[in-house]
């Protein structure tokens, strides 16, 4: 025969041999299967009873974003747009504004994000925004974005992204790079 040479050696010839009497009974096979199931009753559980019990998150878990403030409570984000250009899902939009006199305690830089929105339905939680940020402003956290019936509710604005002054979000575990140098 002049068949083509197989490219891999993974080919298997299917055998179609007649079943023996014992095999035709099926019972031994069924009992064998039940025995395996029975043995599992005495094994340690691999699952947890969510939501009563939750698993521990890895320190670098990528969940809902936070826009950080600095030690003095000023917003770090300067609306530079690098997170938005890095985002593969185009989930981030922002509008910048100029800081006016008297707002120095609110925003760290001369320019700040007046609006900043992340569409959590678009976001794939890849963390590229965090990596792109030159101001250590955006971080992903171990919080899960809650489900909702309304699609609009998934567009998170600054109200839900910027951390509250009295409820700071700890990101030290995922940030020990010390990116911001003293210049």
């Amino acid at each position, binding site marked *: 025969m002049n068949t083509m040479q197989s490219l891999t050696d993974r080919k298997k010839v299917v055998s179609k041999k007649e079943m023996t009497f014992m095999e035709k009974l099926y019972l031994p096979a069924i009992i064998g299967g039940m025995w395996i199931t029975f043995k599992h009753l005495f094994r340690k559980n691999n699952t947890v009873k969510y939501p009563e019990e939750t698993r521990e998150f890895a320190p670098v878990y990528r969940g809902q974003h936070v826009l950080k403030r600095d030690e003095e409570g000023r917003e770090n984000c*300067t*609306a*530079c*747009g*690098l997170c*938005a*250009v890095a985002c593969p899902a*185009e989930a981030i939009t922002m509008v*910048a*504004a*100029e800081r006016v006199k008297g707002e120095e305690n609110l925003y760290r*830089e*001369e*320019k700040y994000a007046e609006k900043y929105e992340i569409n959590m339905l678009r976001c794939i939680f890849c963390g590229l925004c965090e990596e792109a940020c*030159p*101001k250590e402003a955006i971080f992903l956290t171990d919080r899960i974005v809650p489900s909702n019936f309304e699609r609009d509710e998934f567009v998170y604005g600054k109200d839900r992204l910027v951390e509250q002054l009295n409820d700071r979000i700890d990101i030290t575990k995922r940030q020990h790079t010390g990116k911001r*140098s003293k*210049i």
Partner: protein
Amino acid sequence: MVKVTIDDVQIEVEPGTTILNAARQIGGDVVPPAMCFYSKLPGTGGKCRTCLVEVAAGSEKDPRPMPKLMASCSTQVMDGMIVKNKTSERVQEGRGGVVEFLLINHPLDCPVCDQAGECNLQDLGFQHGGAKTRYEEERRTYDPIDIGNKIKLHMNRCILCYRCVHVANQLTDSRVHGVLNRGEHAEISTYIENAIENDFSGNMIDVCPVGALTDKTFRFKSRVWFLKPMDVSCECTKCSGKAVAWMFGDEIYRVTARKDKYGEVEDQDGKTGWICNDCRFEKKDPAKWSIEGPRKINRHSVISQGHYQSPRGNSQKKIN
């Protein structure tokens, strides 16, 4: 015609051509960067030293190498000259030093700066700059000031290339803008913030290689990589009327002159295509322009990031 070899590429040029212009005639990688030289402004060059090259042989008659690195924008070619730019380690090292000097007083402002994404200093810093600074002294700082009501000057970012001064000298009839003081204390000034009332003063923004002079009508509005540059034209009595509109959806965020790959304003109808302040600052209504089509942007530029569709979008249809 004289023969000159730049990075092993030979070319014949007119006598009197500078090394930089000869390299630009070859094009591509052999062209040294230039921060202060501007071919459309006679008299520029020789200030920034980023265009340094090594002259390995002075000429046919006297083939001794020049001992120091030469500023290619202000050194003329000689017959039989051999120049090294990319291929010379000395040049790369020297240029790295120049960049370090340029950055000594430069703020770490790119996230705030409107020039980011189209800034020559950013490109240079990316190619040559170290990740760390060795400078320990205080940086020289100034408050941003207004030059007229449409231009913002961030003296912190200025590299003292003098291009804007040449624009003021050559394009405008009365000069009210120049450099005050010397050395470390030199600063661009409009003689006590005298407003520049001239139809072409806005071109300073286009010639500034960094973000020292920026358009106040565009200030902090967006980042260049979110905008779509379109070639547009209009009937203008003062200038060529050929410009680039930087659009976001159907809105024009800013208008600039058309620039070539060296960041210099292109020639329009045989003349340098400077645009007037009316076109630059006042005409933000798309109905005032006829759109010729999307501007070609180098695909390695951040500006071409994320433009999946034809940048014409729907605006084209609506305007026609």
